[in-house]
């Protein structure tokens, strides 16, 4: 006979309220984990579309995402001449804010050379950029429609294609335009000081035709070290392999988020433990007389432990399921991309179970200490 269930059924109010509270707590935990996964997916999404064997950026810089980098565009031709290099492409990355339907829309502009590395994008709808100027591919999350005109800087662009979900490591939706257009946009949006600075530094090369990065595809993967070594000989350039760039991005963008989110998750799990513990403790105190009576009429300790434990597990379990449902329902209303991974869900379920077990310890100890004789008095 299941006593835990009967007790809950008899007075479900406090139990269900606690479940609801827990579900919000656990929903937040799951949401944060999903934000973290989304962050990783977004951060690495840009690398995934670039498919670079080697990243080339400004000397002393660690890539176009972690730091700002300016190099002359013709760097790509110089590198292309190197043995083992199959193709190169120049890229511009720029965050901009544009007015759109009465609101400010923050987008991440990628300027790419169509038909070269970094210029290939998967489309959900529409077509690729054909004209050299004033055409856009946009992530659907920008809210831009196919055929829509949008003003970026001093020029109007037409949306000709919609991208498969793609955002910057900061979570901003991506728009793609030609390299030339993006260079102009960048010069319009950059603070003048930065612009002057960049121009002076690179004046040795005698160019204002600047890009943020050049990516390299190799004909032969074994050439990577050799190519990187010779690029590094140019003092104003630095080069790193695809995996190195991924590691840098993961470290700079993701690790900090992981620490923050890990911290919050830990705090929330502690709160969850305390909440379950307190509720189970008070529920046990409320049943003091019932438990004493049970002992008196001969119920073994296992019956009493089960009574407390099952309620704690039910709290955790129902809170978990409710929380998982709520956060999935709320998914689309989140400003960030949420990515739910089964392994995270399973892990959290394990943790919640452990937390419920831990939280029931005080309740169980209290229950086992209750003196059966106390059932006799009053």
């Amino acid at each position, binding site marked *: 006979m299941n006593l835990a269930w009967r007790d809950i059924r008899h007075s479900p109010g406090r139990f269900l309220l606690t479940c609801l509270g827990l579900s919000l707590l656990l929903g937040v935990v799951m949401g944060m984990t999903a934000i973290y996964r989304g962050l990783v997916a977004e951060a690495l999404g840009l690398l995934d579309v670039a498919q670079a064997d080697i990243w080339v950026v400004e000397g002393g810089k660690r890539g176009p995402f972690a730091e700002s980098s300016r190099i002359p565009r013709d760097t790509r031709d110089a590198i292309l001449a190197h043995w083992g290099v199959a193709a190169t492409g120049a890229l511009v990355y720029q965050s901009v804010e544009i007015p759109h339907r009465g609101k400010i829309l923050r987008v991440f502009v990628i300027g790419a050379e169509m038909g070269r590395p970094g210029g290939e994008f998967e489309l959900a709808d529409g077509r690729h950029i054909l004209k050299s100027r004033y055409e856009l591919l946009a992530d659907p999350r920008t809210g831009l429609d196919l055929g829509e005109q949008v003003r970026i800087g001093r020029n109007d662009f037409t949306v000709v294609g919609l991208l498969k979900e793609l955002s910057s490591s900061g979570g901003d939706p991506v728009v793609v335009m030609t390299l030339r257009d993006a260079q102009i946009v960048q010069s319009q949006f950059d603070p003048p000081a930065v612009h002057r600075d960049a121009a002076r530094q690179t004046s040795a090369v005698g160019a204002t035709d600047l890009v943020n990065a050049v990516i390299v595809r190799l004909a032969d993967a074994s050439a990577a070290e050799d190519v990187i070594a010779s690029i590094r000989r140019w003092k104003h350039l630095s080069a790193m392999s695809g995996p190195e760039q991924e590691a840098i991005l993961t470290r700079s963008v993701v690790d900090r988020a992981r620490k923050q989110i890990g911290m919050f998750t830990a705090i929330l799990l502690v709160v969850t433990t305390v909440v379950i513990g307190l509720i189970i403790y008070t529920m046990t105190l409320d049943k003091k007389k*019932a438990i004493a009576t049970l002992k008196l*009429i*001969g119920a*073994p300790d296992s019956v009493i432990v089960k009574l407390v434990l099952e309620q704690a597990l039910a709290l955790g379990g129902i809170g978990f399921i409710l929380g998982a449902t709520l956060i999935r329902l709320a998914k689309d209303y989140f400003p960030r991309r949420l990515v739910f991974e089964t392994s995270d869900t399973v892990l959290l379920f394990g943790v919640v179970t452990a937390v419920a077990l831990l939280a029931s310890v005080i309740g169980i100890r209290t229950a086992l200490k209750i003196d*059966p004789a106390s059932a*006799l008095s009053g």
Partner: protein
Amino acid sequence: MAHAPVIEIEHLSKSFGAGEARVTALADVDVTISTGEVVGLIGPSGSGKSTLLNCIGCITEPDAGAIRLAGREIYANGYTTADLRRLRLELIGFIFQSHNLLPFMPAWENVALVCSMLGLSMPEARDRAMELLDYLDVSRRAKAYPSELSGGEAQRVAIARALANRPKIILADEPTAALDSERAAIVMDLLRRVSREQDTAIVVVSHDEKVFSRFDRMLHLRDGRLEGVKSA
């Protein structure tokens, strides 16, 4: 029916506290109680009635002396609390001053719980519970929760629960204290009937002189000592 001695108590002593605060609750109590008997345990407040009942009920361990229940030596046998609890489950039924039914289960489940702890299947436990509630004339309240029962009904359900394990011994600490005299009489008559029909030894602690006439025998306790044994 041949009545067998089922509670045998020899030289039982129990005191609480130490030094100045030492209280002798029981002093050298000797008594034997047989099945089919309803024994009243009476005496002034603090005379040790509850203590004696708790010693018999395997709840309070005496300092000295021996108790045999159905021939089994308890306390001196190295029984653990778990063993004693099992012994209670198999041998003893308890009836309390307030009914002490589990508030979150309907009447019939309170009774069936004991059966199921003894290993009966759920349908068997249910049948036995309904049978007992019928026997105590409360079967029509079987589905009611304890809070929905009147005092008398609750006490009858509690008696049904005490009978669920077919106990050899029923211990009742002031079972009628919360009832008016009419209901108290009904409950006492029920206990008498149970003791005869189920061949059970029943020990009832009571302050209530109106029910004294229902006892086969009365044990007078004063300062932990048994005074002259009277027949009712």
